[in-house]
């Protein structure tokens, strides 16, 4: 398939995929550590790089009904989190367009 085109982050405090070490997001983009996924703690990020999304589904989460898409790492093709497309409760609208990455799947690099 050839070497895939990867993007990178400048600066410190970057989160990378635990398996293939490609940059996913960074500290600046992290909004909250207070989420839970299937594998434990998860972080909410404003945006990320080097991922693609799967099919959008309507799911009932702990916080209500949402439309979400799987977030899949470009390097190893593993599902590492999900992306909020639409929130049906007003109080959850702030999440729309943002991504959740489970802590289990990422590592920190350049952290001081």
């Amino acid at each position, binding site marked *: 398939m050839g070497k895939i*085109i990867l*993007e990178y982050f*400048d600066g410190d405090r970057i989160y990378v995929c635990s398996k293939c070490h490609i940059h996913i997001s960074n500290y600046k983009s992290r909004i909250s550590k207070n989420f839970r996924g299937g594998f434990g703690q998860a972080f909410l990020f404003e945006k990320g790089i080097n991922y693609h999304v799967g099919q959008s589904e309507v799911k009932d989460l702990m916080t209500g009904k949402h439309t979400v898409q799987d977030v899949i790492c470009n390097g190893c093709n593993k599902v590492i989190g999900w992306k909020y497309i639409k929130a049906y409760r007003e109080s959850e609208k702030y999440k729309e367009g943002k991504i959740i990455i489970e802590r289990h799947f990422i590592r920190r690099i350049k952290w001081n």
Partner: protein
Amino acid sequence: MQVYDNLALQEVQSISIDDSPERLKEIVRMILQELSQMGYDDACKILEDESQTKLDTTQMSELKESFLNGDYENILQQLDFSDMINRKLQYEIQKQLYLEIVQQRNYEQAVNLLRQLSEFNEQESQVLAKMIFLPEDASQLYVQLGIPMDQREQRLQLYQKTLNLLNFGDFSLKTQFDKVIDQSLEYQIKRCPYHNDSNENKNYSLLIDHNCQSYQIPKNNSILFQGFDDEVWIAKFSNSGTWIGCATKKNSIYIISKEQQQKISKAHQMDINSLVFSSDDKLLFSASNDKKINCYDVQTAQIKVTMSQHTNEVLCLAYFKNQLFSGGVDGWIGIWQDNGKLVNQIKSKVVKNILLTDQYLLLHNAAIFSITVIENDSKFNKIITHMEEQELIVSSAVSQNQQFLVLNVSKEKPKLHLWSLKTFQKLHVFFGFQVKGIEMKCCFGSKKDNYVCVGSQDGKVYFFNKNNQLQQNVIDGHNQPINFVDWHSQTAQLLTASDDKTVKIWIQDHVEQQQIINIANEYDQPINSQQGEIVEEQDDQEDEEYQQQSEGDQSF
């Protein structure tokens, strides 16, 4: 391995050769006319006798005489053709007559004639009318009409015009030889993208199906290397062209030359990002995502030293004047000596590629869409400019003459941007090749860096002429995506590395038979002995490479 020039092929196939006797006669008469114009009368006579065709200049010269003498009545009597031509002819001759009458200040007659003229061409007649009433502006009016001032010249021009109007029979000889050449040259210059390159000496072909500069394109596959353990991601020539360094998806490095092929399996634990040879081709350096830089001896393929000072992925290497430059995610660029000693560090952003010229250090930034240009002195702290792009720069290359930079900006749509390193302006955009999310290397090539070359998702190699934005050539390289192209300027060889686990060498000259070389697995257990066999054939095209090889030996 086809050279595409479809348009030309179609055109040529549609033209049928006309060898009727009339055509042959015409050709002879064209030659006769040219000869007589050049003054070779004797040759003319001989040709006339042998070919039994006369130029028949007598009638023509009589006609010419009548024109030059202003004997217009006679002319109109002699030339009596279709109504349309008659009318036009009449107009032209009357116009000339009018001008001469005005010259003689015979205004009454002139005005009468003017009335007739205005029936045919109102616009010009108005200009002609001014001749009478504004004699001072005469020269200006002549220019407006496109007629020379001198009477003899005028009559000559009228003669030519008449000839142009009459295009059949004995008077069809307006197709003069030099006119033919001029017009076909113009046509070729308009049509052929190669012709327009003013740098080359003007050896233009006039034929539609000529192969003008495409001889510069290395379109013939001379050698095929097969037997790599996986997709080949990097394949680079050494500085002299005798060695090839390759890296595959399985993180193996191959060092290949005409005589020997060596494999270093599992050279790194993770993806190999870059390979460079030292200036004397004795050492091969490799940089990988496993944060290490390895140094191998080219002859023996043994590892000499490992540099582990980087704390994050090392994305690129460059070698310049006995120093190795390395850059990556760390945020600093390391300058090393051949023995692996780190001598200097330069602060930078995340760097995807380092390019060095005599004047500049160019840093291809991975996170921001730009190239930072730093002055190439020993300190590297003077930033000259930033070359900004709108989207992610995938790969970059500098031309041999260090004047140009090409950037592969193919994240959204596959295209290449050509920049000048003198003015730091974007010059051209090239597109036409295909990319689907994988890195394709682009490079410059051919003697004057005329071409930009890039591999494509569909296995073709695209060549773009740097001076001329028309897409030049496409060759069928492989049947799977081509990851890396390297064009060696001195030996004029092109190297292509592909996902189909092969590497091919291409040259300009015609190749009788492709040479297939199987890569011997020296550090791996061969499964069957056939894999270790190296197939060598006698091939004259390889003489060039043999010479290079011997030069390399002397330097050792």
